[in-house]
């Protein structure tokens, strides 16, 4: 098997007496889409925050392609190829859709420190941003400010921002949350495309079981901050312990 793209070793965070993520060790490989499931409060989003750097780990480490990135800032981790989309829409509200995406393209190209050349002269950045606009079918909305978009399009833009970062590791936190049934397939198609690339590592937090079944190569289950199960989707879904702690309650919640 290929060497892991991303690895967490005994990753732990404590908030006072509460251990939100407890010694989670897990390796993620290129070409693999891992779905992370678990009841609300299981620590899924916190686990993401530890990997992408929004929260500092109490102990343990995050390894990206053999490099320890545990102590780095979120921006430095982004430059190491760890990209993240957020559960709650997290855009640049007063900027246009095109500007939002161009910012992500520009961050990767490290052109942000260019202080004197007008943005319009950076044709390559705009073209790349336009490419991602088309890929996410947002071209028609290019000049609308992000704040004025309907929820479904904001979710798409959230995904477009992550794609425009062109990371090695894509982390999606409930990308279809709150989306109508007409819009959700668009976002899932985009994730399927990234998966089809086979060179990217994808982590996906998702509740909807049909989505999990359609996309997952592997499922890990978090419960009370601990890694409860890890393996082949069919195997994990049918295991007794998972049914007890997760599926029993979750199907009621997401119905």
């Amino acid at each position: 098997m290929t060497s892991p793209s991303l690895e967490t070793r005994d990753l732990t965070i404590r908030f006072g007496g509460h251990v939100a993520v407890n010694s989670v060790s897990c390796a993620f490989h290129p070409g693999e889409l891992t779905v992370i499931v678990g009841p609300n409060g299981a620590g899924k989003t916190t686990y993401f925050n530890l990997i992408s750097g929004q929260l500092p780990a109490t102990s343990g480490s995050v390894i990206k392609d053999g490099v320890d990135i545990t102590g780095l800032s979120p921006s430095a981790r982004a430059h190491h190829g760890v990209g993240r989309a957020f559960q709650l829409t997290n855009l640049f509200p007063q900027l246009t859709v095109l500007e939002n995406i161009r910012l992500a393209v520009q961050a990767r190209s490290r052109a942000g420190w260019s202080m004197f050349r007008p943005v319009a002269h950076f044709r390559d950045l705009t073209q790349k941003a336009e490419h991602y606009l088309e890929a996410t079918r947002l071209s028609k909305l290019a000049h609308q400010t992000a704040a004025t978009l309907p929820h479904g399009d904001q979710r798409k833009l959230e995904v477009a921002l992550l794609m425009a970062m062109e990371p090695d590791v894509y982390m999606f936190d409930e990308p279809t949350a709150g989306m109508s049934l007409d819009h959700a397939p668009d976002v899932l198609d985009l994730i399927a495309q990234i998966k089809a690339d086979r060179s990217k590592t994808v982590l996906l937090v998702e509740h909807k079981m049909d989505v999990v079944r359609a996309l997952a190569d592997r499922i890990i289950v978090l419960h009370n901050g601990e890694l409860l199960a890890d393996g082949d989707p069919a195997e994990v879904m049918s295991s007794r312990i998972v049914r007890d702690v997760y599926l029993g309650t979750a199907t009621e919640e997401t119905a």
Partner: protein
Amino acid sequence: MSNPMTQTPANTGTMMVKGVVALIAALLLFAPFLFQDTRSLEVAARICIFIVLVASFDLLIGYTGIVSFAHTMFFGFGAYGAAILLKQMGPGWTPVILGALAGVGVSLVFAVVIGLLSLRVKAIFFAMITLAAASVVLVLASQLSHITGGEDGIIYKSPDLFKTATKLAVDEDGKVLRLWGVRLNGKLAAYYFVFATSLILFLAMLRFVGSPFGTVLKAIRENEARAEAIGYRVVAYRTAVFCLSAAIASLAGTVYAVWLKYTGPDTALSFSIMIDILLMVVIGGMGTMWGAVIGAVLMILAQYYLRDLMGAAAEATANIPILPQLLAPDRWLFWLGIIFILLVYFFPKGIAGTAMERGAAKGGGA
């Protein structure tokens, strides 16, 4: 190859604002010839310098969302740098250039220290720290009177080129040449020095905000956490823009010191200047650059001419009861306050900001 779908649509509001700014630029360019009296020229020079000062503050508050109360401190560093050296070394260009460099140097040191120590903390703490630093510097300036002249400030001579007696061109009798009735003397040279440096600094700032760097500043204002998450080191960018804005404010201070030939706490350091800057940027419109121009012009014109205007109005209405009392020149601050409240009420995003937004809604759409 450019996609026509993603071309920026024309915006009537923006066009109007730019037109007004172009008109102001033309008036300032020909000010010595259009308004031939000393007071008008004072007002024009003050407008030029405050446009730069307010625009550099807009880089912080409007573009990046940083609230600082130390902007006059940086302005003062530049002014006192030139003033102290002009006093010690006598008139000449060397003290002006050294003073400018010293002002920028001290400003950068302060900006880096304040920035690195406190830009990580919450906005309110950062604002408090800048307020504290500015207060300390103001106290120092009034206490260290052997260097700064204390409360009285420093009076000095500007370089010879800017002396009123200097003749830029002479006629056959050896008298100073006049062009459209204006003496081509050192005062004129001084005004154009102020105008040219202000124009260069303002154009430089326009380049900054239109560059990729400018887009990162806006991203930080809009959503700091996401800007960090997509790969921008927010602390580094915030410190950089704080330094940049401090350096420009300091240069504006040096130019003002050369123009006024006097530097004291009231002209270069006081908190009333800070409040003026805040009002100008709010009235003009934050995060637009053009707003700095419109805000500075309106506010300074009001400060200089509202009294006169009210005096005239009071005389004109002398026969009507109550009105003359209301319009008495002594009540100019009262009316200034009312004008501000009305402006903020009807132009919540400032004059430029509101006009550009309404223009976009009408003309551009999506």
